[in-house]
């Protein structure tokens, strides 16, 4: 479903240039739960951003369902981020002025033209309520993010990422800002979605979290160091 070819990415730091990714290639199959492991600064978040077309590689390409992501038009890449991919961030990144329901519904709003929205509004609200029900927050729809706990905020972020039913969920250390118990709950929720068929690529530095995945990719110094499959992985099938 997703294939990254020989990705290179460097950033300028003052006068120096820091190579973050140096020829990374990987693939993910539909329904797979892939974890990218690595220490801080190993380039795992940069890789995730490239997979989600949030950034552009210096070299290399990402194919999604056999089509290049970076050779698409700008508009097509925006659609890719809106419909094909969902993002979950470590710090939740919810919009503070909006309620829980509005935060969840906003990707739908972005992806729907104004006049179409008027006729699809109810359907979108229904979908958002259903998604919030699935993440266990149907009682918090009218709350603002600052009225929620960390775990609840992350659940809202997951609901937002999945409202448009994307093929791929990209999660950047989703448990990194949570305590162990809440982190485990979030992980459990992600596993549930994966079991239901959701493809997930998750970045983490926590090995304990990684054991849940079908496959682990270890990134060191901007290169894939090791690929390890666990039992039941679609990669092994």
């Amino acid at each position: 479903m997703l294939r990254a070819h020989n990705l290179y990415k460097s950033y300028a730091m003052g006068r120096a240039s820091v190579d973050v990714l140096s020829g990374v290639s990987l693939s993910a199959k539909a329904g797979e739960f892939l974890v990218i492991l690595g220490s801080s600064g190993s380039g795992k978040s940069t890789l995730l951003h490239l997979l989600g077309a949030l950034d552009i590689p210096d070299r290399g390409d990402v194919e999604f369902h056999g089509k290049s992501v970076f050779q698409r038009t700008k508009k097509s890449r925006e659609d890719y981020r809106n419909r094909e991919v969902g993002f979950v961030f470590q710090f939740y990144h919810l919009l503070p002025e909006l309620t829980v329901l509005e935060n969840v519904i906003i990707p739908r709003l972005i992806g729907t033209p104004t006049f179409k929205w008027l006729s699809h509004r109810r359907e979108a609200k229904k979908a958002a309520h259903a998604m919030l029900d699935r993440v266990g927050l149907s009682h918090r729809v009218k709350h603002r993010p600052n009225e929620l706990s960390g775990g609840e905020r992350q659940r809202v972020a997951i609901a937002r990422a999945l409202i448009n039913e994307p093929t791929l969920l990209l999660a950047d250390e989703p448990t990194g800002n949570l305590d162990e118990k809440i982190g485990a709950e979030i992980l459990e929720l992600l596993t549930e979605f994966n079991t239901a068929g959701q493809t997930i690529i998750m970045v983490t530095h926590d090995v304990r979290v990684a054991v849940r995945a079908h496959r682990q990719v270890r990134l060191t110094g901007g290169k894939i160091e090791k690929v390890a499959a666990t039992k039941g992985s679609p990669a092994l099938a």
Partner: protein
Amino acid sequence: MYKWFLAWRYLHTKLIAFFGIASVTLCVAMVLVVMSVMGGFLDTIRERSRGLHSEIVLDTGTLQGFPYYEEFQQYLQDNHKDVVSVTTPVIYTYGIFRVPATTYTRPSRVVGMRLNEYAQVNDFKQGLHYEHYFPGTTRLGPQRMPIGGIDDKQRLVLPADLEAANARWRESETDAEKKSEYTAHPYEMAMYPPYVTTQYPANRVYAFGDEGPGYVGPENSGVIIGCDLLNDRRNDGDFDRHLARGADIALTLMPISPAGNVTGEPPVRLPLRYVDDSRTGIFEIDDLCIYVDLDMLQHKLAMDPQTLADGGMTKARVNQLLISLRSGTDLETGKAIVAAAWEKFQESLGDQPSMTDMQLLSGVDVMTWEDLQRPFIQAVEKEKVLVTILFSLISLVAMALVGCVFYMIVEKKTRDIGILKAIGASARGVAGLFVAYALAVGICGAVLGTTLGVVFVWNINDIQAFLAALNPQLRVWSPEVYSFDKIPEIVNTWDALGVGVVAVLASVAGSIIPATIAGLIWPVKALRYE
């Protein structure tokens, strides 16, 4: 859709937006007040100028005047009855006005008129004080001084003709509040006590007797005096009248010959009787002009037919001929017809006029009231444009302020921009969000500013009165400087709409740079923004 949704949400949750709204509000209000006051000033000048003259004016611009005006009046009557309604001659000169038994003297512009005709060509009569409360009693012919009596109930009673005139006013006055304001005596209301006894001197006798209400003194020609020339203006815009109606006035004039020489030796001294005061609303006129009977003034200035050494007679002269057009006649068309008529009329005179008369006739201009006032109106028009431009430049500051406010909002919202881009918002969409936000700020500011401006303009005189009551130094509108005794209180709807639309556009323009910056923010950088 999300642009409008988020713009609306930001609008009422972000305190900083209120600074943007406040700056637009104040700018709109400021520009609207300036435009309205200047526009009102201009409109008032136009309106008052129209009310001062007739539609068409023949004028020489000299003090000698021009002859053959009566013949021309007849010519118009015979040939252009369908266009010309009323014509009336006017004389103007300068003199020294004095109130006998006081040291009060003032230079003044003396206007000779036939009051009844003059009232038919313009609004002069509407500004007469006593004529309002005693209709039909103001006249410029010879007359004596009215004097009241005190009856057995200690009420002032005026001569019968004045009492009857006042009763007519009371019958026609529909404003019950105005009528019932003073109930002690029906005439005190018209006179605004406590000055009643100074306006109509009363014989201090009871039950009339032989010294009841009546007329005293010699028969002198009447004079109407500009209200600011004689009275004290109160803060409420009305006047304190210290001189009794019918009081003696002395006027000194210097006659001018057709050649332009001063002929009076010694100058002409006229005893007159103060019959009314006139309020045109233009300070320069109300503080300068006095009005007397045309035929009397013409005679005193030797502008009436004079016998020459050879036994011939000169022609009577006047300075202006006011011509009122029939209703429905276009002003410029009327002017063209009268100008053509004047040319034809001069040709028809042939060799009749003397050399001097020919010179005077050739100096006559046919003008509309707009032509006559054009230099003044144009100056005010230019002033209005200039002041509007200056205040609009100040409004650029508001635009810059909106730019600063939005730059700060974009800085503060950088991470939100990253989130929106991560979930599929385009650069144009993010920029559009901030433009929509600025549009909302502009619309709120324009609506509030227009409301504030309109309310301010509508109450501008009350506000000034309030400030002046706190401290007289705070009275900013001086009738001596701005001609009119009240600040114009009219807001032009198109001005208000125009200012509002420009404010919205300026607000949007102010947000363009910050919005473009927001659109260009790279999503990864925005998400990592601390």
